[in-house]
């Protein structure tokens, strides 16, 4: 191997050097044969590895990114990301649909749709899919989204009928967004409680634009374009996910030209590095996450008593006012995050800059703390009251660089108003266990949200969410009522006003300090054209991306 080195000058590209090595060793030359429009190899740098590719039982984000290239939904959200009604949705497996009364939705499947083993996609598959998603033995995490669907039946081989229990604005969204249609004929005989680890989940057969080729655990996963795909042949021939343990290695692979795309760069450092790399382009899009400093409102481990510190609303408000959220976001995200006016991501249409929030005002915060009896009586820099220090533990997961960074910056900001923050960096598994059982003072939480606020807000901020993801146990009936009103409203403008009133109520109670709502920045190789990124799912339109033949590099032409 080393003998080959001096023969040729070093080439920056892995493929080039590998072929040189091959050349030097064997005297062989393999020029890839693929030419024309439908060549191209796209390598995704992927942080983490799928936990399977069978949609109802997978939980990992990478798994979803990959499996959505293989399995189709009935219809998908449009570029507007509007989830109310059905007018902004685009057809996928279903070529069209109609309402048969207020509670019945009829889907007409595209007759051209085929499973990759040649069988037709039928309404029986849709029925099978709903049954599987709804089966306790399959234990799908997406089952909750199907709560209001009462039945799915087939009218004929290409017509599927979805019936609902009640009428609400996002019925259509629920009918199409959660389920990927599964091949009944291949899965029917696999026991439902073994779907998680069945062989099919690691070598699936679907109906999407790409079919499965190979998956080497710990290394990479490859898909190939299905040239007969009924909605149009995908332009890029090979999709490869390269697994890396962390974001840094992923960015380094991009910069070194060993990968072509990464959907989120996260830190301003990474963005800077990518922007300084000539062959990479950046694509900003609205992020689907928000993060906050949350206060446990009940005593740790005893939900019947208020938290000794955070049970006090005025104390929480003082802390909220002592935190310079704008500056924190600027430090951690550069210009690529906004301070949200409540628990919401940039993706949500309910984002309203007019929402009233608590101001950043340290003098007011200090005055408020002093009024409540918190003064630094022993001169150690930390306020105290009746011998109790104004000190709390903040728990963050070791896995999240952003949250660790925020924790340390918050620690310093709160120290300046005489509040002591002790940081517990714990494994994610421990964090989850502790917040679920209420064993914490304060936490920094991030949520990756659905495209719509209706389910997430309810699960995290209302009484109905206690025991689910309302870890802070924030309970305010007035807020709950506003949320219910807003989600039930068919009128978007009116709903938006109601959402705003709800958020203002929440901000006044300050159960949490809403810190950041990032804008995502993707890095993609400049040779890729027609890059379209739908903010709610960046991977949804990959099948329309293409590499013009004149911009192709060696990697694109390699014959497999």
């Amino acid at each position, binding site marked *: 191997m080393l003998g080959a080195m001096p023969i040729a000058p070093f080439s920056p590209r892995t493929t080039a050097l590998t072929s040189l090595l091959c050349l030097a060793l064997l005297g062989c030359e393999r020029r890839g044969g693929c030419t024309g429009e439908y060549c191209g190899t796209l390598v995704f740098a992927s942080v983490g590895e799928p936990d399977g590719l069978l949609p109802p039982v997978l939980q990992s984000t990478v798994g979803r990114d990959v499996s959505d290239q293989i399995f189709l939904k009935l219809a998908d959200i449009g570029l507007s990301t509007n989830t109310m009604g059905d007018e902004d949705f685009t057809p996928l497996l279903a070529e069209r649909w109609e309402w048969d009364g207020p509670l019945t939705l009829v889907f007409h499947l595209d007759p051209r749709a085929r499973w990759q083993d040649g069988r037709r996609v039928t309404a029986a598959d849709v029925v099978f899919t709903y049954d599987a998603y709804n089966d306790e033995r399959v234990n799908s995490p997406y089952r909750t989204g199907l709560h209001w669907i009462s039945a799915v039946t087939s009218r004929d081989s290409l017509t599927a009928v979805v019936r609902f229990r009640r009428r609400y604005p996002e019925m259509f969204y629920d009918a199409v967004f959660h389920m990927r249609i599964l091949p009944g004929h291949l899965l029917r005989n696999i026991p439902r409680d073994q779907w998680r680890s069945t062989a099919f989940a690691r070598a699936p057969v679907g109906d999407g634009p790409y079919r499965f080729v190979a998956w080497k655990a710990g290394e990479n996963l490859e898909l190939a374009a299905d040239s007969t795909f009924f909605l149009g042949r995908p332009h890029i021939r090979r999709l490869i996910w390269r697994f890396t343990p962390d974001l840094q290695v992923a960015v380094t692979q991009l910069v070194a030209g060993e990968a072509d795309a990464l959907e989120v760069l996260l830190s301003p450092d990474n963005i800077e590095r990518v922007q300084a790399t000539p062959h990479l382009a950046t694509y900003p899009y609205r992020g689907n996450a928000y993060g906050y400093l949350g206060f446990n409102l009940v005593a740790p481990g005893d939900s019947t008593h208020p938290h000794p510190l955070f049970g006090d609303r005025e104390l929480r408000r003082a802390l909220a006012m002592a935190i310079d959220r704008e500056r924190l976001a600027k430090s951690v995200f550069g210009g690529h995050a906004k301070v949200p006016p409540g628990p919401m991501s940039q993706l949500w249409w309910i984002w309203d800059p007019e929402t009233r929030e608590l101001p950043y005002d340290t003098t007011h915060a200090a005055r408020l703390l002093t009024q409540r009896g918190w003064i630094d009586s022993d001169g150690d820099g930390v306020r105290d009251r009746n011998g109790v220090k104004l000190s709390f533990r903040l728990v963050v997961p070791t896995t999240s660089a952003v949250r660790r960074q925020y924790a340390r910056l918050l*620690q310093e900001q709160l120290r300046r108003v005489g509040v002591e923050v002790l940081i517990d960096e714990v494994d994610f598994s421990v964090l989850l266990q502790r917040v679920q059982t209420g064993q914490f003072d304060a936490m920094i939480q991030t949520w990756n949200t659905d495209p719509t606020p209706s389910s997430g807000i309810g699960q995290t901020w209302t009484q109905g969410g206690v025991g689910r993801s309302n870890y802070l146990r924030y309970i305010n009936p007035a807020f709950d009522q506003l949320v219910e009103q807003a989600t039930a409203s068919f009128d978007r403008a009116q709903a938006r006003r109601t959402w705003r009133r709800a958020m203002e109520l929440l901000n006044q109670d300050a159960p949490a300090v809403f810190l950041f709502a990032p804008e995502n920045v993707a890095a993609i190789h400049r040779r890729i054209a027609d890059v379209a990124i739908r903010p709610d799912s960046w991977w949804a339109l990959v099948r329309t991306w293409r590499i013009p033949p004149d911009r192709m590099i060696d990697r694109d032409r390699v014959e497999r």
Partner: protein
Amino acid sequence: MNLRATLALLGALALALFVVGEARRHAAATPARRRFFRHRPAAWGLFVLSFFVTLAIAAPWVAPYGPSVTLEIVTLKNQPPSLLHPLGTDLYSRDVWSRLVYGSRVSLSIGALAMLVAVTVGAVVGAVAGYVRRWVDTALMRLVDVGLAVPRIFLMLMAIALWQRLPLALFVLLIGLTGWFGTSRLVRAEVLTLRERDFVAAARGLGAGPARIILRHVLPNVAAPIIVSAALGIGNVMLLEAGLSFLGIGVPPPLPSWGNMIADGAAQLATAPWTTLFPGLAIALVVMALNAVGDALRDALDPRREAEWDTDGATL
């Protein structure tokens, strides 16, 4: 860097030089000291160690800023080395030099304390096993086998997973308690040969109990290998601490240790390499100095011994 910090740094350098000079001046006094300084790197190692120990003790004077003071979280983060910040600033706009200085306190004391625990346990176990022999010996040595059979880092990972928030003292104790296996084997082997020697037999003849014999007669005579393995072991502990911090389970923030400084900086390696480079160099320097001094000590304390392989290895 302000004037006070610069002067203090120069003072620390001068003091370290003085220590080495004094030591060398008295080197001719005994054969052991002569042998020590015959090792060329030893004087150098001594200098590095006294310098960093001085830094650790005098941290508040040498460091221009507090260890966790964020200077200006937007405009002063990840600044390259300059006159004002000789080693640059980190992601949180903290002065890297100040953290390095305070970090020497944490890292050196973790190294020394954990090694103290390890050597104490190792020496006691080894001495007891070697002296008492029979089933006690078998049981203890099997325990050592088990301890050596699991790679230490897995052992630490699992043990640390037990605690949701690990107090620093416990962290040190854990490192110590997973690091005594090699020492105990070493000591046991020494004791096995010693216990048959005349003076031990004589003490036994005079009616001394086993505890007394071990403490008064056996242990002092195996002190040399213990001291050497301790000197080398401190370095290993520092390397282990760095590795654990890199995996996210080291010294809790915002306390700086050289290990968690490397870990904090690793994410900015490409854009702000100084945050990772300098603490890594500091570790390398000190471990190097410890190894040099350890080697020299070995020769100094026991001229007839061949260089013994350091059973704790410095692979980490």
